[in-house]
């Protein structure tokens, strides 16, 4: 049962507050005192959070009244599309909060609010503080539109809006051009994804006839996306759902940094740390997962798309984790960790555990935000700018206790230490993967399940390992910048951050530890005890998913793998890095492999070599060609020709009188020559079965006719320029077939013999139905009939058309005509003669009613 509560203006206000903050800070922020900027920047988000909580409480209160309760707010109609069927599809600016959106809103406003607070301390000294706050607020507004938008286009406003903010914030310190380039890279890569969303959106609306998520999901559940989508010439025809999902997923890979579009996220660390925490860890990058969950009823209908998502997610998780293992900089490690964790989420989505994937989004928001803020706190403490090299840090647990403990809590969470939030969410994902292995009926999903399970376990090992490597190298051992040796050492005396920064750390750290209890597993491992899972019940209202297995052995397998991975990872890090100052890993794995991983498997270089550079090269060529080749062809060559011919012609004007007179005489001769030769031009008009032949009259002309071109003239020399003739069957020279294209109206004449002759394919077969090997039809004369066939077909496939009758063949109107030939000889006043011959297609049959007369005389019937 569904329940929709309309016109909840709170939803609008949730968005408008940050938006207003953005506008105020953006326009006049730089003229306002810093305090006021803070009030506006943080205050609006705080209000927004409060409104979100209020809305959520209202929504929560409805959970008993309906299975799917939503709060909606219809703002206004944006624009509308008209579909081919004639339906007008309005695109409404309409907001909606359901169980999924409610959670997301809380996360965005809550975590976002904390990060805003943190920014007060972190960015307070920056000269662009107001600008920063403005962008951050704008981001909040966009993100909230993304979350609350009830239709794909409205969501898309937010989707691209967050991309814009991401661009602006990554390049916040724009004076460093590399940072600005990183911002641009983020925007462009995201745009590639947006391209997918755009196309996916069209397919959705084309099938569902609506942009609203609820309608699309309903259509998906109604099976409307099942029909095939034939792909041009390939012969492959996946279902509509698959195509739509693949396009949408392309968008998700862009926004959520999955293979192949993940490359922008590590570079995005160029932005200030709060930005990394808010946009590139907690909220924006999870938008892809959010979208998948939003459209989960659609995604779940396509096994192919789901498999692609699961495999991509797993591969991303592995790849990013393998890179993170060897990096040296805090934020970079965290960035790859984010990519890797997003891979986990998509793997969950891919195996049909949308709720689990989204649960990981939820927990990840806490611990990853906390980690980033912790990293920011460390950087703030040691005055590192941009990023911090962990090999120059160490032993910070003494100086930065709050940071250290919150960081540790988050590390435990992300590693999946039992009873922390990450433990529950990761466990659920592995359970999802494990569940697929047991779907014996479905070989595709079984193999995907194996792949995912093993891949994710490995990734989990690496996750625990690199996080604790990071933790140990940063917080244990000695402070390696204390003696100020080495190049660019950090501040020798680190200090703990101000309260505006530590409060968010504490809140998030606690969150990282405890929020997992919202999503307890259904079945307790080992004991097999059934537990109440608030999360899956709540999510059930808005998110589809595959059934959660209840079998104990599956649960045990998943939990065992999760625990084992955590233990191995942390254990390894403990051995290699606790209280160490150097990277022990370099000695344990081959140097080249290490270097390769350190260089991020050189994916950026690969992309540059196979995509970016070729395109750039094409662009360069195009740019050069445009002003040289194209312009030359279209303008300079014609103008050169005209000018040069003008020059040559004007040279004719030599200035010599005799030459002038000679040219005149040439002219006289030319005019005389025209009159010297006779001219003729046969026209035929038909009346009943007689044909009237005429040729233009000339001064002093005489004519004689041979109407059937049999070599004997029918008339004597005469001043009258015409004659009338009745053709007999012996006069027929052959048969002409006319094809008149019904679309274009273009008429073609085809010679026909007793041998098969191909018809021009474009007259017969419409362009978009033509395959490359299509040769259309062949035609031949058979006695009194015309025969048509597909080339190579058996005789029985022939179409027979009696001559003299009109037919229809594919796109063409077909009719056959008997052809005769007429000759005239003209003699002019100077006694010169000239002959003209013309083929005439008679519009009637000769010797009617029998068509037997049309039998061609020779094999080659029309010359």
């Amino acid at each position: 049962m569904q329940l929709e509560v309309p016109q909840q203006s709170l939803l609008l206000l949730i968005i408008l507050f940050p938006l207003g903050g953005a506008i105020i800070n953006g326009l006049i922020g730089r003229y306002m005192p810093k305090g006021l900027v803070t009030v506006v920047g943080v205050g609006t988000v705080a209000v927004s959070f409060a409104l979100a909580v209020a809305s959520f409480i209202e929504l929560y209160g409805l959970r008993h009244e309906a299975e799917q309760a939503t709060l909606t707010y219809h703002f206004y109609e944006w624009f509308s599309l008209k579909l081919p069927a004639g339906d007008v599809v309005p695109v409404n600016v309409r907001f909606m909060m359901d169980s999924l959106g409610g959670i997301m809103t809380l996360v965005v406003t809550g975590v976002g609010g904390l990060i805003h607070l943190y920014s007060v301390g972190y960015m307070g000294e920056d000269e662009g503080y107001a600008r920063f706050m403005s962008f951050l607020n704008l981001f909040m507004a966009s993100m909230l539109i993304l979350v609350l938008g009830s239709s794909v286009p409205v969501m898309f406003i937010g989707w691209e809006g967050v991309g814009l903010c991401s661009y602006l914030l990554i390049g916040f310190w724009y004076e460093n051009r590399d940072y600005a380039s990183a911002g641009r890279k983020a925007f462009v890569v995201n745009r590639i994804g947006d391209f997918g969303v755009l196309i996916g959106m069209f397919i959705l609306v084309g099938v569902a006839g609506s942009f609203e998520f609820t309608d699309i999901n309903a259509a998906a559940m109604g099976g409307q996306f099942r029909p095939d989508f034939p792909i041009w010439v390939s012969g492959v025809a996946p279902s509509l759902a698959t195509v739509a999902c693949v396009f949408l997923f392309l968008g998700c890979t862009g926004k959520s940094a999955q293979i192949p579009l993940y490359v922008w996220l590590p570079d995005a660390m160029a932005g200030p740390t709060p930005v990394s925490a808010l946009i590139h860890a907690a909220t924006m990058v999870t938008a892809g997962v959010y979208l998948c969950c939003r459209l989960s009823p659609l995604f779940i209908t396509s096994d192919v798309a789901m498999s692609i998502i699961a495999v991509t997610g797993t591969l991303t998780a592995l790849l990013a984790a393998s890179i993170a293992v060897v990096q040296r900089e805090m934020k970079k490690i965290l960035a790859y960790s984010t990519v890797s964790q997003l891979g986990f989420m998509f793997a969950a989505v891919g195996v049909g555990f949308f709720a689990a994937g989204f649960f990981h989004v939820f927990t990840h928001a806490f611990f990853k935000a906390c980690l980033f803020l912790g990293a920011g706190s460390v950087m703030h403490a040691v005055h590192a700018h941009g990023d911090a090299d962990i090999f120059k840090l160490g032993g910070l647990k003494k100086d930065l206790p709050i940071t250290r403990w919150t960081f540790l809590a988050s590390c435990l969470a992300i590693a999946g230490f039992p009873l922390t939030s990450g433990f529950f969410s990761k466990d659920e994902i592995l359970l999802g993967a494990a569940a697929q292995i047991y779907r014996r009926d479905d070989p595709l999903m079984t193999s995907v399940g194996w792949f995912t399970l093993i891949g994710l376990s490995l990734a989990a090992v690496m996750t625990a390992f690199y996080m604790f490597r990071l933790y140990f190298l940063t917080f244990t051992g000695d402070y390696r910048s204390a003696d100020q040796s080495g190049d660019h050492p950090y501040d020798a005396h680190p200090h703990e951050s101000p309260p505006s920064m530590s409060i968010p750390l504490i809140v998030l750290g606690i969150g990282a530890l405890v929020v997992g209890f919202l999503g307890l597993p259904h079945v307790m491992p080992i004991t097999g005890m059934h537990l109440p899972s608030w999360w899956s019940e709540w999510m059930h209202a808005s998110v589809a998913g595959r059934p959660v297995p209840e079998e104990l052995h599956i649960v045990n397998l998943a939990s065992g793998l999760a625990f084992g991975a955590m233990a191995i990872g942390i254990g390894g890090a403990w051995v290699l890095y606790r209280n160490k100052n150097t990277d022990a890993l370099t000695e344990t794995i081959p140097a080249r492999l290490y270097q390769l991983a350190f260089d991020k498997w050189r994916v950026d270089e690969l992309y540059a070599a196979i995509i970016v550079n070729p395109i750039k090269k094409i662009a360069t060529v195009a740019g050069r060609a445009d002003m040289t080749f194209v312009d030359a062809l279209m303008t300079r060559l014609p103008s050169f020709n005209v000018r040069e011919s003008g020059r040559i012609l004007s040279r004719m004007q030599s200035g010599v009188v005799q030459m002038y007179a000679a040219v005149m005489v040439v002219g006289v001769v030319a005019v005389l020559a025209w009159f010297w030769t006779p001219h003729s031009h046969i026209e035929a008009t038909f009346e009943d079965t007689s044909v009237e032949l005429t040729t233009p009259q000339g001064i002093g002309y005489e004519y004689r006719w041979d109407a059937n071109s049999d070599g004997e003239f029918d008339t004597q020399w005469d001043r009258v320029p015409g004659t009338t003739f009745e053709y007999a069957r012996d006069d027929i020279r052959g048969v002409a077939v006319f094809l008149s294209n019904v679309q274009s109206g273009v008429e073609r004449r085809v010679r026909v013999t007793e041998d098969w002759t191909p018809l021009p394919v474009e007259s017969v077969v419409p362009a978009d139905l033509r395959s490359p090997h299509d040769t259309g039809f062949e035609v031949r004369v058979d006695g009194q009939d015309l025969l048509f066939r597909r080339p190579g077909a058996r005789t029985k496939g022939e179409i027979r058309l009696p001559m003299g009758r009109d037919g229809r063949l594919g796109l063409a109107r077909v009719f056959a005509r008997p052809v005769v030939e007429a000759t005239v000889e003209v003699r002019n006043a100077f006694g010169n003669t000239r002959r003209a011959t013309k083929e005439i297609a008679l519009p009637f049959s000769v010797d009617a009613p029998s068509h037997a007369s049309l039998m061609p005389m020779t094999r080659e019937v029309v010359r």
Partner: protein
Amino acid sequence: MTTQYLTWLLALPAISALVVLLMPRSWETAIKRFSIGAMLVELVISIRLVLADYSDAGYHFVEHVTWVESFGISYKVGVDGLSLWLVILTTLLSPIALYASWGSITTRIKEYAFSFLLLELGMLGAFVALDLFLFYVFWELMLVPMYLIIGVWGGKDRVYAAVKFFLYTMVGSLLMLIAILYVVSSYQKLAGHYTFDLQELSTLVLPALPQYLLFAAFALAFAIKVPMFPFHTWLPDAHVQAPTGGSVILAAVLLKLGIYGFVRFAMPLFPVASEAIGPILAGLGVVGIIYGAYTAWVQRDLKKLIAYSSVSHMGFVLLGLFAMNRTGISGAMLQMINHGISTGALFLLVGAIYDRRHSRMLDDFGGLAKVMPWYAVFFVIITMSSIGLPGTNGFIGEFMILAGSFFSRSPIGFGSAWFIMTLLAATGVVFAAVYMLHAVLRMFWGRVVHAENESLTDLNRREVLSLLPLIVMVFWIGLYPKFFLDKMNPAVDSFVSEFTVRYHEGRRTSEPRLVDFEELADRFEAAGGLAMAQPTDEEVAR
């Protein structure tokens, strides 16, 4: 008796031009104020046009006065949903462009104002003319002032650019003249009298072959103006050499006349040909989208970059137009307005920096965000509009065009050629981000490397005033396009349905004849309509 708003709309610039001509050249301030004032009055008059009720498809404010009786030439003007916003665009941008020009135009103020007023007359006339002869007159009339603006007040190679612009456009339009004459002559042979009245000529149905030739002649004229790849090479030259005001008008309004010509004249008169050739033009539009984007990316001259981006944007418009459905055509019409606003604003911005720095080379800039923060803000906003960020105007247009092209020609929307064209066109959205952000990066981000740039002043009042209306329009159309689309949609709807009827009638005829389309449309409607262009299953005898 209704007030003759359109006649006033046309008379005012003509009269003002004469007045300016008679003013002594030393009265520079007076000339400036007077010409801007006249254009603002134009704007007010044109806003009056918006207030009419456009829920039915017909023409409004129609005025019909015989001009040359023996040839059936008449002064017939009117606006409908298709031309309304283009008129507004013209009246909005003309004063802005002229106002913005006063930053750089310091010589021959009088002639400049005169040319501008004449230009406005030509553009408005072409948009409101409902008589082919009248349209042609205004169409050609525009050339001269634009030629002078480029040639007299332009950059270094201004003469080459001006002559190229003039000749290129002229060659195309002369063939159109012959085509017009042919249509009129065919009509006369059937009806017994001459007329250039579009509505009367619309009753003429020609067979396919002449339609192809005539459409080709019209299309050449319009495609050059659009400009469609590969007829675009005059555009970069013209833009680079033209003064700021000229560039603004050229990009914002003149290019639109090509598309408008297609919609108003070429497509209704020659439906069979447009149905057959249209996809090819749309395909060239797609080529233009990608080609324009590529070439824009590697330009080092900012104005050239924007000029090529126009090629790319107008490619979208072509695509939407020939999708031949309401979504696509409405999108195309809206995208024309959008392009006018965003590209016009971009040229204004380029002009602003050129006035300060006398360079447009990207290499000469960098780090301007530090020195000219407001300039950067405006530029980035317009950039976002140009690359079609949702919430700005560009998105609505591109979205509707892509949707229109996606759903073109078949019920579910997967006719293969159009699907592929849509995919390719959508990549243009990506490339737009590439080249525009490339420009933004080179202009604004990074450190100030050139010492000359350190002392640049931010936008002055005149520049801000001329940009603000455009910024407002960016968000107005972006956030509430319904206001604009609602006036447009009835006209587009009736355009599409009439086109369908005409198309079927044209396909059926082998001799020129006159048809009562209203009656035909009713019968057509009664028969439940026909699926466009697709042969039925029985027709494809396989």
